[in-house]
């Protein structure tokens, strides 16, 4: 802003929009961009995996080949196998497991399942967290009996935070069938607390912001103020939390599988491949290290991206 600029004059130095600025800062962060690249590649792999193991079975994750148990990666399939059971090029890219199943095919199938568990679980926790945090932040002052809505919701959130989540999940999974959907829902319903706190805090400060007051002064209905004016300005930290949350959800599923409470066959997940593999860690180490490495990479990638986003959204950095 220059003093001599008439306030009606032409556009002053064209400053960037918040999202473009965010993207530019993120692009400067090599590690975050590496994380993003890995995730995009893994997303493609997951989609291809779904397609080539279930719809058009090019890689068959379920065929049991007792003659080809514990084949190391890159070893050739036995000549005794019937043609129908042979892997695509006659080579087990990532070896076979204790039943002679193709680990490459199982990893492909698992990539989709693991990622969808991560995304669906985080989707559920975003939905719950945003709704509860939003209500607490916007309608917080409304009273139900002696307590405010805000107190009610936030004490419940605190209570949930006090429960050791992993044991809660174990209890629930022990009681319910460990289907992939139950796992998604359980992980999602136990990981919303951080998000609801973020959203509440953002809403409390947004409520007092002039542009929200202006919207109220214009007589706009509450839903419009909440969803058009406040929510888009509150979503940035939620996205950061969610990004890291996907990694946490994938890890949680792996840990559950490791303890035998995870997603059950026929679904392969990276977690249950790893869990099976741990029994043969000396005879067939690839059964353990391949899914382990895959989980490590995806969790690292989500965390790098999440941290990069957090940095890029930091207003102190943005102002540079």
């Amino acid at each position: 802003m220059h003093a001599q600029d008439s306030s009606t004059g032409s556009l002053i130095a064209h400053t960037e929009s918040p999202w473009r600025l965010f993207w530019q800062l993120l692009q400067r962060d090599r590690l975050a961009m590496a994380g993003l690249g890995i995730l995009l590649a893994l997303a493609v792999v997951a989609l291809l995996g779904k397609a080539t193991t279930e719809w058009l079975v090019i890689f068959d994750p379920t065929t049991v080949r007792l003659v080809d148990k514990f084949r190391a990666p890159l070893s050739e399939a036995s000549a005794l196998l019937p043609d129908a059971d042979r892997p695509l090029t006659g080579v087990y890219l990532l070896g076979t497991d204790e039943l002679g199943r193709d680990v490459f095919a199982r990893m492909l199938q698992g990539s989709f399942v693991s990622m969808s568990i991560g995304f669906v679980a985080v989707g559920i926790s975003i939905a719950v967290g945003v709704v509860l945090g939003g209500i607490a932040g916007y309608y917080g002052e409304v009273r139900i009996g002696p307590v405010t809505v805000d107190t009610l919701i936030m004490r419940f959130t605190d209570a949930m935070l006090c429960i050791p989540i992993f044991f809660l999940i174990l209890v629930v999974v022990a009681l319910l069938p460990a289907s992939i959907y139950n796992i998604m829902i359980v992980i999602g319903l136990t990981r919303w607390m951080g998000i609801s706190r973020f959203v509440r805090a953002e809403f409390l400060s947004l409520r007092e912001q002039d542009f929200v007051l202006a919207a109220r002064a214009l007589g706009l209905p509450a839903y419009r103020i909440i969803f058009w004016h406040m929510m888009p300005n509150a979503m940035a930290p939620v996205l950061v939390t969610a990004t890291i949350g996907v990694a946490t959800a994938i890890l949680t599923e792996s840990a559950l599988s490791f303890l035998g409470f995870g997603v059950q066959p026929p679904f392969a997940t990276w977690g249950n491949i790893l869990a099976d593999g741990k029994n043969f860690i000396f005879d067939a180490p690839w059964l353990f290290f391949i899914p382990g490495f895959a989980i490590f990479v995806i969790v690292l990638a989500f965390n790098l991206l999440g941290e990069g986003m957090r940095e890029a959204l930091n207003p102190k950095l943005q102002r540079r």
Partner: protein
Amino acid sequence: MSTAALLEVRDLAKHFALRRGLLGRPSGWIKAVDGVSFHVREGETLALVGESGCGKTTTGRAVLRLIEPSSGSVTFDGQELLKLNAGDLQRMRRDIQIVFQDPYSSLNPRMTVGNIVGEALRVHGIARGAELNERVAHILERVGLSPDFRHRYAHEFSGGQRQRVGIARALAMAPRFIVCDEAVSALDVSIQAQVINLLKDLQDEYRLAYLFITHDLNVVRHIAQRVAVMYLGRIVETAGTDELFDNPRHPYTRALLAANPLPDPSSPRPRALRGDVPSPLTPPPGCAFHPRCAEALAHCDRQTPTWIQIARRHGVACHLHQNTSRQGDDEIPDG
């Protein structure tokens, strides 16, 4: 002019609860606004002045019910605003708008200028499609912005331009009354003058009434017909603008005027006001100004001064003027 007041505020109070405990019991009250009365006539500007923290913003927002007042009455065009239900209030809001101080935080960063200005028209079903576009373009032109700006985001503009967008948003609903809360305080001096001229032009054209909140007395001279001086949640003096500047009666008003000479960079600012504003949490007893008052009388720290109408359009709350009173014929500060 003796038309009935468009906006009539009586004994307005807003007490903020300080830190609620577990059972919601406040540990104290911040009396940000503590019994304020004034009125604004159609087409008139009343300036509300006072130091930082004296409750100007709270008053402005309580009038619009952006903050729920604790008590008092606000009548607009004969209707009691504080008793309206949500639906009626929303309808009433079209007549009463607000322009904010900060041209940056007052515009949604994720909306285009066209949406900011036209949103209410569309949501309330007043205009849509081509008609909406036309009206938005017209309003933008009226506040001195190019209609082409409506596809751009607010962050692309300078402070003065943004403030014009804020004014356009307020104008869109064709209001009759606008609260301008430090509407030019964040702008450079040269741009301040342009925006003030715009506000005056709009006032003439649409017979707008303004409650013009500011701490800058130089601005007051240019825009207001009447002034209300506020100290620690109460109005201590009201008068016509010229009368107030020529013949200030309350020691606080005099101190404010002394501390605020006509803009002249060469002269150092005299510090006529001693000490800081006391906390509205624990306002001094008697006259809240007495710890800082150079002319305080013996009983000023015990007795709260009542409102005294010393001339037809000049009122003051101060013990010094108890005797000059036309014997408090009217409790409402009248100007």
